[in-house]
């Protein structure tokens, strides 16, 4: 197996591992649109990174984290009650990112790498950064697991029972921003939400407990990465979209199972 493929597989696996449990929270809490908004605005981070000529990964991460905080604030003030508002934010940040990226005539940015991912071009540094972030987010999720579950069951109930709802919710958004920043390399901003929610949705029918669903979602993600990269290797299909497609195939297969709980 060529080196670039091994690097791609390992990187894909580290992202899939964290995308599973995080994706479950996105599905349970119906946050898919939040994920979209965060992901689309990541491109704005890329554009600003170029504009200010700072490290792009850093720019994307900071951009995502900043937007996550802004979204939490807006949500807190109940401004963000509607899908419409999220839709406006999501697509206008994407559009702004695209416009700024194209305005820079000096260097042409390879936009498709950011829009659809560039998994086959990852280097060792990328792999190390991504697996470090992934490990950090998984650890954080484990520590917060009980509180996150309580929050997901009912926020009011959690608050009355003494969970600091605002703090935990903010932390979840920041973790999501981090994962989006690293998952960008794998599937690109347009397909990140799919990588997060499809494995989680595919594992729903096969799980009896939240923990089972989270672990299974990671496994489905890993299989999807393997399937997508295989397809990409043999048929020269784009890696990111192929991964999402194979996740979708796994989801369709899951429909043949009877829901247990």
């Amino acid at each position, binding site marked *: 197996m060529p080196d670039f493929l091994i690097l791609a597989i390992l990187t894909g696996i580290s992202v899939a591992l964290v995308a599973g449990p995080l994706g479950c929270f996105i*599905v349970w809490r*119906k946050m898919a649109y939040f994920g979209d908004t965060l992901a689309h605005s990541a491109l704005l981070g890329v554009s600003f990174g170029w504009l200010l000529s700072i490290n792009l990964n850093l720019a994307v991460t900071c951009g995502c984290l900043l937007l996550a905080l802004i979204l939490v604030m807006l949500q807190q003030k109940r401004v963000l009650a509607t899908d419409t508002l999220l839709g406006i934010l999501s697509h206008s940040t994407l559009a702004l990112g695209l416009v700024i990226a194209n305005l820079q005539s000096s260097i042409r940015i390879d936009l498709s790498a950011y829009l659809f991912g560039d998994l086959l071009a990852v280097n060792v540094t990328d792999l190390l950064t991504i697996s470090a972030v992934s490990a950090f987010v998984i650890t954080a999720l484990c520590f917060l697991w*009980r509180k996150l579950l309580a929050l997901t*069951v009912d926020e*009011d*109930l959690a608050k*009355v029972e003494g969970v600091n709802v605002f703090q935990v919710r903010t932390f979840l958004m920041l973790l999501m921003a981090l994962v989006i920043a690293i998952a960008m390399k794998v599937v690109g901003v347009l397909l990140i939400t799919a990588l997060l929610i499809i494995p989680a949705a595919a594992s729903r029918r096969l799980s009896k*407990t*939240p923990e089972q669903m989270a672990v299974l979602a990671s496994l489905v993600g890993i299989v999807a990465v393997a399937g997508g990269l295989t397809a990409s290797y043999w048929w020269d299909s784009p890696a990111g979209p192929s991964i999402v497609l194979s996740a979708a195939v796994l989801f369709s297969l899951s429909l043949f199972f009877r829901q247990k*709980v």
Partner: protein
Amino acid sequence: MQSSNVALDQPLIKARDICFSRANKIILDKVDIEILPAQILTLIGPNGAGKTTLVRILLNLVNADSGSIVTKPNLSVGYMPQKLSLDSSMPLNVRRFLALTGANKAEVSEALERVKVPDIGKHVMAQLSGGELQRVMLARAILRKPDLLVLDEPVQGVDIAGQSTLYRLIADLRGELGCAVLMISHDLHLVMAQTDTVVCLNHHVCCQGHPENVSDDPAFLELFGRQTDAGVAIYTHHHDHSHDNGICDHPHESET
């Protein structure tokens, strides 16, 4: 029941002059309310009278515009919202939900037994019927042993026969746990036997006291009509409560 040295009648929650308005509409106007240990307090009033808002303010889920709330330190509260926001995409069964309180298997079984639904342990939380959910929430309260149990319309979606059973269960649990109960209800006579104090709310406190006194209070009659019929009936509420027709002739704090 209360083993601490604190005086038994020190209120668990004491709220004064609570005002709350939203979108230029006054929801709560100078509401005073206090909940004593081991007391069952029922909050009644027509739809839109601000009952749920008041409870949410007392639980610190919403901030009042003005007024003061004093809560007993380290008050542990069991809360039963009208509905959980839980989505069916989460595979969470009743036993697991109850185990989130930190209880072990035996304790969970015992609690389910106590609320008379021993067989629904494997049911999915998101698919419980109204009555089952209320019982599961009561089981949860048993496991958490709160000082105060707050129930928002506990009999919603429960048939009439089930309603009185549920109220009796709540009253029994109050006896066993020694906790106070704050309950929102639409109708009075089903809860009467079990309630110590009724607070009749329609943006302000219209009247309060023992249920029998309250049910004769002119302000209550104005809101609910006379409920002499002990039979089972669905009440229609008169939603417009006006103060200038002379029927509601008791003094109001807001007017004194």
